[in-house]
């Protein structure tokens, strides 16, 4: 319909986003809008409650403010959750667990940072063990300023996030695939050069069509050597499974 949209080609120049033919169809657009609406009205929340923000969540969810009115309900495992709440400061050690949990969640997934600690370190700005900026390590959809934000502020950011999901604009989860090299670089700078997670993010990006120029790079190259080393160990340890595992991309 729109003549200015470039056709999809194998040697297409690197654009920020190449629209594919399937996505332009009317059927697909209507279905995406329905899906986006349902996504915005049903947010399963995984609380990462190591910070002070955890105390603001019980009033938000229980009878005082009751977020189930708009479809926000708590979930207990990352596999089932859509929204990861980082409720306050993260130490270097807990950030590792946050990244593991984040990678286990299924896309589309959203992250909200609570309070000043996730924005710039807050009152822990000069601590050697505390993460200063959360959005350097995982893509974040929104922050709530304050120390601590009141439940009203929490509600407001939920409503803002819902409006953006409904409009199809809350796509920060794609950045983790498109820009994985940068995120991994920041993680490795904090955790050391041998940092890796069980999730093969690069393979996921390829499989789900979110592979971009920033997905691989200097930092992901290190992962490949690790994968080769791990694969080379498989036939010795599990000879009967070796052939099976090697077939995997």
């Amino acid at each position, binding site marked *: 319909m729109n003549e200015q949209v470039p056709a999809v080609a194998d040697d297409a120049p690197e654009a920020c986003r190449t629209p594919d033919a399937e996505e332009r169809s009317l059927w697909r657009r209507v279905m995406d809008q*329905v*899906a986006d609406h*349902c*996504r915005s*009205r*049903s947010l399963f929340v995984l609380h990462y409650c190591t910070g002070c923000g955890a105390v603001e969540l019980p009033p938000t969810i*229980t*009878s005082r403010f*009751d977020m*189930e*009115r*708009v*479809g926000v*309900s708590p979930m*207990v*495992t990352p*596999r*089932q959750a*859509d929204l990861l709440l980082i409720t306050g400061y993260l130490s270097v050690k807990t950030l590792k667990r946050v990244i593991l949990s984040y990678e*286990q*969640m*299924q*896309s*589309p997934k959203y992250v909200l940072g609570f309070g000043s600690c996730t924005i710039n370190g807050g009152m822990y700005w000069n601590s050697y063990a505390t993460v200063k900026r959360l959005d350097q390590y995982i893509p974040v959809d929104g922050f709530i300023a304050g120390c601590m934000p009141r439940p009203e502020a929490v509600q407001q950011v939920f409503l803002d996030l819902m409006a953006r999901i409904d409009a199809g604009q809350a796509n920060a989860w794609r950045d983790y695939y498109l820009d994985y090299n940068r995120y991994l670089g920041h993680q490795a700078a904090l955790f050391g050069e041998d940092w890796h997670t069980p999730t093969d993010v690069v393979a*996921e990006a390829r499989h*789900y069509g979110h592979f971009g120029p920033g997905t691989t790079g200097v930092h992901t190259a290190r992962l490949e050597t690790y994968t080769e080393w791990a694969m080379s160990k498989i036939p010795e340890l599990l000879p009967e499974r070796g052939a099976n595992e090697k077939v995997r991309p």
Partner: protein
Amino acid sequence: MGEGTPMGFWELVADLVLMPLVAFVVGLALVLMARRVRARIERRVGPPVMQPVYDIVKLYSKRTQISHGWMHDVAIMLLLGGFITAEIFLPVPGMNGLAQHGDLLTLIYIMMVPMLGMALGVGDCANPNGSIGISRALTAMLAYDVPYIIAVIGACMVYGTSNLVEIVEIQQAGGPATWGIATMPLLAVAGLISMHGMLGKEPFEIYIAPAEIATGPMVEMSGKYMGALFVMQCFQLYTVGVLYTTLFLGGGEMWLTFLPKVFAVILVFVAITNVFGRLRTDDVIAWMWKWPTGIALLGLLLVMIDV
């Protein structure tokens, strides 16, 4: 309509398609009611009317998937397939489906398939929380199945048949005085408790235990797998509600008198659920084999003396 005639065949096909669909729609309403009642008990407003649909559509429209092997995929088919098959054997007003050809024992057998499917699929995930959950679930099944089977056998003895269509007809012909809850109150109580255990709600929800083993069998279910579990929950509430209504509350000739009974049964379960904590696995077995089983055996004894 006689068997073998073309009209009978097409009627059967219509039943086989419509019965699971009706079950799903009624199941959505039951899930909504359960969540709304829970909210009111906690002095909250509760979710909007379309919330169960939002949840299912959202889960089915996830962009990424984690599968833990082909058994994990087959398990979901067993889960949903078991319940969809069970709906076909459950007579509802206007639709008998295959209920004439398979009796109550077939239904009991089919209703065990989903739990076994879940066990096979969760075994493929290799998540320790899932393994603990499924071992607890099968143990709980061992606990609630004893009073459940006794109650069902007692009901079959009272009606003199294990055919669900005939059971409904007997109760419809005799009026409320011949309803199972009037003719065998002790078996009805035992059946209510054991079917509550079957739903896996508090105080018998040790195998889900969100704060302890992170929802147990469901821990590795994501996206479309979780969506299938949400659909299964609709079918599960409907199956248990309809089975109890059929056995003890007289079934129904028309939807207007049938559905209120189904909703009332589930409302009893929901009301009990929300005021109880969680029993340990060994306590579940001890309690289930003591009280509901005792009540059911006493009811069976009374039934046998009367007969």
